[in-house]
């Protein structure tokens, strides 16, 4: 089959690889009808996340049709089922899964020892996302093997386009959880850094959950226009001071809820501290560029909440933790517990509360995936979200 394969820094290729096979009773194989490039895939593309190996298959936003089922998964899946695959692999049986903390499943990471060393304790296995999280082949491919498939799936109805459902795999529940874990009150101002795909979903989630005011921060006009369409007041950080403007919009008190939908690759040349981080990254003295975390910690209203869906990889420098402690801020973060929200969010799509396909700017065949990584990373051609079609059916632009 064809798949997008990581070959090194900024080097992703569309190659022929062996078809996946059932390796365990609880496995299933799906024929991929649609997959997407996630912003967090770019951290792998740029090689800021450790644990990648040449030959790894990329991708963790995938949906398709079940074509083979292991005997241990037959009670919940059958050939022909239409499924979205959550990016977190879950056993559904461990203590964390039973509590709904699916992204920290204790059993699905087959490289548990490595993760124990890196993070202190293991987190869930993820598709196509480094050997720290299991080194499982990803879904930017014609076929995908789904481990623990009896639990790691979201069944979706026929008759609805893939584009409306695909983002149940990651960015929609990620934006939703980012907003939910802020515990949004009707009086709240919610500030969201980053208007990429997760930022856009977070804006919609905050609006649906009833925030009084939603403020979105970015620099790209196309992303800001989409944020505005979703109901956000926008701040272009290249044109105005984020801290001053946020204080203006909140009577000088700061937003109650701050959400980081940027993560470890904050724009490297926009601020002095990001340039400092970039220089330290080049010298391998720091892994991430945490400009957004610094700004959120500083501007957030006392007793407020910082929610961090943005991905961070390692060791961060010069965080104003004194502000966090003295203002009594709450920090909530983590990979998304996708299956905790999927039934509810599927219903909200079916009830027309939201149509997540609004975020798609490019649809292309899988073969053009490597080029689209670059287009997406460099924010060219108005690119906000790329959907790939491994089995035909794609060539759509904005």
């Amino acid at each position, binding site marked *: 089959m064809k798949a997008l394969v990581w070959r090194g820094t*900024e*080097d992703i*290729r*569309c190659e022929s690889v062996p078809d996946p096979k059932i390796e365990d009773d609880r496995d299933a194989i799906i024929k991929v009808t649609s997959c997407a490039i996630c912003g967090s895939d770019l951290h792998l*593309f740029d090689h800021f996340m450790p644990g990648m190996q040449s030959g790894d298959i990329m991708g963790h936003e995938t949906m398709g049709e079940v074509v083979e089922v292991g005997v241990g998964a037959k009670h919940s899946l059958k050939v022909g089922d239409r499924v979205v695959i959550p990016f977190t692999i879950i056993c559904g049986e461990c203590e964390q899964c039973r509590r*709904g903390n699916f992204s920290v499943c204790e059993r699905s990471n087959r490289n548990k020892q490595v993760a124990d060393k890196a993070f202190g304790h293991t987190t869930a296995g993820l598709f196509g996302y480094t050997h720290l999280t299991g080194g499982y082949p990803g879904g930017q491919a014609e076929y995908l093997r789904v481990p623990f498939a009896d639990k790691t799936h979201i069944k979706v109805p026929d008759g609805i386009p893939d584009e409306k459902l695909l983002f149940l795999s990651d960015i929609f529940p990620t934006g939703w959880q980012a907003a*939910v*874990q802020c*515990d949004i*009150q009707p009086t709240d101002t919610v500030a969201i850094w980053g208007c990429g795909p997760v930022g*856009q979903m977070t804006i*919609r*989630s905050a*609006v*649906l*959950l*009833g925030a009084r005011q939603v403020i979105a921060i970015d620099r790209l*006009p*196309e992303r800001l*226009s*989409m944020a*505005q*369409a*979703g*109901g956000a007041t926008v701040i272009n950080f290249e044109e105005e001071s984020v801290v001053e403007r946020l204080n203006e919009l909140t009577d000088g008190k700061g937003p*109650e*809820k701050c959400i980081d939908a940027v993560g470890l690759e904050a724009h490297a040349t926009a601020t002095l501290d990001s340039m400092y981080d*970039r220089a330290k*990254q*080049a010298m391998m003295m720091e892994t991430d560029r945490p400009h957004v975390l610094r700004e959120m910690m500083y501007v957030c209203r006392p*007793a407020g*909440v910082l929610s961090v869906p943005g991905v961070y990889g390692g060791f961060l420098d010069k965080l104003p933790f004194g502000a966090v402690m003295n203002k009594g801020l*709450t920090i*909530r973060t983590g990979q998304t517990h996708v299956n905790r929200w999927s039934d*509810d969010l599927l219903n*909200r799509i079916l009830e*027309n*509360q*939201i*149509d*997540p396909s*609004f*975020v798609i*700017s490019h649809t*292309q065949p899988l*073969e*053009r995936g*490597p*080029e*689209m*990584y*670059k*287009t997406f990373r*460099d924010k*060219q*051609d*108005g690119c906000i979200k790329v959907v790939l079609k491994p089995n035909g059916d794609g*060539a759509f*632009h*904005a």
Partner: protein
Amino acid sequence: MHSPIPSTALPGYSQSSGDRLAAKLGYLSLALGAAEIIAPQAICRMLGLRDLAPLVRLYGAREIANGVAILTSHDPEPWIWARVAGDLADMATVATGLRSDNPGREASVLALAGLLAVTAVDAACARSIGSGKGNRRTAVSDYSNRSGYPKGLTAAWRDASDFKAPEDMRIPRLLRPYS
């Protein structure tokens, strides 16, 4: 399959031939820079350049900075053009060795020819990266019709008010009025 997206890479690859060449030039900068810093006297002796060792060492630092910038930047194009500017400075310096009484004149001529060739490669590489780039001016910059709410923005506000946040994600009751 036709696509309006400018080709930024080889088909099936995330890198263009220009990107790959840029990386090689980055490593060349590092190697040349190291040589200029470690052995400026030997280089000057070979080319018959008098009293220019400190300048050659400075050029070495420039080459290393340039190489690091090429290898760590998302967009190496400006740094490849910086190499072209550096090549011109190098050529001007080496040209001082073309005087007839210079015993290293032959070596200077060869070095100049080599520098000319490298400059041509650098310029071709920078032009190739530039022409392959997607153009910000072609960006679809207006998504103001993409609300994502089939029932419209006004109806969307609090449309999910039936949602009950799980207790583990709520703020402690006593703190809620302040948060």
